[in-house]
């Protein structure tokens, strides 16, 4: 059991980047119901700022990456210690497949630890993916 210090909270929090409609709010309320701390990010830049402050996993919808400059994000991933392997959960658009995910996804996939989930996603599926992602860094050194 990790002590519930402010730093530990910061390192286990879920960053949500989902700019459409109620997506972010609903996701946050789901995570809150499962007693998982989270923070909604308003843009890719905001996500990077929050990543720098500390997080356990990032939940990002595909649309928030497509056509964006992800160079800084890739650099941030490269700067992480080798044991960290920071997890991203990418939520693909309805009916999408990994092949048509776009150039940005390819780049990100090579750079980091990506899990792809197709929307609409079941609440149980999303929660289990988030929990699994949060476990990985904890099991590190």
């Amino acid at each position, binding site marked *: 059991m990790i002590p519930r210090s402010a730093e530990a909270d910061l390192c286990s929090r879920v960053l949500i980047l*989902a700019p*459409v*409609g*109620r*997506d972010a709010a*609903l*996701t946050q*309320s*789901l995570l809150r*119901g499962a007693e998982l701390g989270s923070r909604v990010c308003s843009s890719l830049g905001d996500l990077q700022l929050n990543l720098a402050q500390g997080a356990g996993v990032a939940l990002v*919808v595909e649309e928030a990456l497509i056509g964006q400059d992800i160079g800084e994000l890739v650099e941030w991933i490269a700067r992480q210690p080798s044991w960290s392997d920071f997890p991203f959960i990418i*939520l693909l*658009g*309805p009916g999408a497949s990994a092949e048509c995910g776009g150039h940005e996804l390819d780049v990100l996939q090579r750079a980091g630890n990506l899990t792809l989930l197709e*929307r*609409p*996603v*079941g*609440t149980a599926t*999303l929660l289990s993916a988030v929990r699994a992602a949060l476990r990985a860094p904890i099991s590190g050194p």
Partner: protein
Amino acid sequence: MLAASYGARALIEPSNGARILKGSDRVSSGFAGLDEILGGGFVRRRLHVVEGRPGTGKTTLAMQFVMAGRDQSETVLYVSMSETRDELQTVANSHGWSLEGIQICELVPPDIAADRNRQTMFRSSEVELGETIKLLFDEIERINPARVVIDSLSEMRLLAESPLRYRREIFSLKHFLGHREATVLVVDDTTSGDPDLQLHSIVHGVVTLEELALDYGAERRRLRVAKMRGVKFRGGYHDFAIRTGGLEIFPRLVASDQTRTPPTEVLPSGSEQLDTLLGGGLRRGSSALLIGPAGSGKSSIALSIAYNAAMSGKSALLYAFDESAESIRERAAGLGMSIDPLIASGKIDLHEIDPAEMSPGEFTALVCRGVIERDASVVVIDSLNGYLQAMPQERFLSLEIHQLLAYLNRQRVLTILIMAQHGLVGAVESPIDLSYLSDAVLLLRFFEAQGTVRKAISVVKKRVGTHEDTIREFRLSAQGLQVGEPLSDFQGVMSGIPAYVGSQSMIKSADDTTLG
């Protein structure tokens, strides 16, 4: 569950046992016809489904149901999931209704309502369904209505995604309502074609609306009660029509529902010889079929009987499928019968029926209403051929006619059915055999003798009492019906190719004009 959660409810319906529900447990549907079919109306505090394909009249029926409640000063709620208030108002305007006093709740799922409410993350069954149900429950709780319409469940089915989830929601709806005073109609689109039997098994009653497109003429609409727990209802299909002002429902006639009074009185035909041929005349409370080729005098005989009844102060109803009222009046004048004053005084009630526009059920309802309103002694259906055209499935024609005749017999009405046979002379045939349904059958034929075309009449069947076995010559003139002496010197008159075997003289006429 994400947004709305509603506590688990016991999935056991409050049992009403096997008792038949009493009148006080019923809520008028807003239609006399449907109330009759349901044996009093919908069942109070229960969930009913009105289902049908798009355009069958479900929303119209549901709106009339809430308006009927409103008219009794009940609090009523119309929950519209697929149509906006404006669209409902348009429907109401087209019928000349006011929606005042009806609480309308537009329950458009949040996903569709506004862009900022959209969500792309989760399944609608996990987000919007719960939210929609919660909105619905909150609204019902707030308004506490006596009648609720939910239009339609199809939206709910879309949100639920899986049949299992959908069924659970309907259960939760039913049990939420089970604790309230509301009588509920839910509207369900059977777009897929098959009725939702899952839904049928949950709800208390099911009314199915159908529309049949005919090859020619207006579409036929019919309604069936597919289920009604603990209630004796009238089964089978009942015709209905959608008119300006709403649905008109015509319950299928079940003659045994009516009380019987024994027939006695004989109605004269206007020709003593014809009455002699008929063994005294045709009785009230029986039916007679007049068959023969076109122009052989069937309609004139029927008209003469109706005229004589009306002249003696009784009332007669004429339903003309083939002829216009104008031509019937001319025909009557040609036979020396002035029916215009009788039509004016209501003793003769003449209806022109367009078989392309009227369903058999509506016709039956029209006749029954006419008989009651006018206290009629004679009903003439001219002709069955026209009526036949009104039946999209003619294999049931004889059953429909049987019910109608049984009903009219019990109402002490003499029913005269006219059927034109194909062909003029020689071998003629009937489009359908109905002779076994009627109590008396009069056969008319053309024959040729001494260089002229003449008419013959014979009674081939009479269930009660005696009749002559002879064939007589028959003629129509300005003096009315004339029936001559038995044609004993001819052979083969009924075949239309008679052979003369004697020296008998034909009817002498004052003038040489004959009327058809």
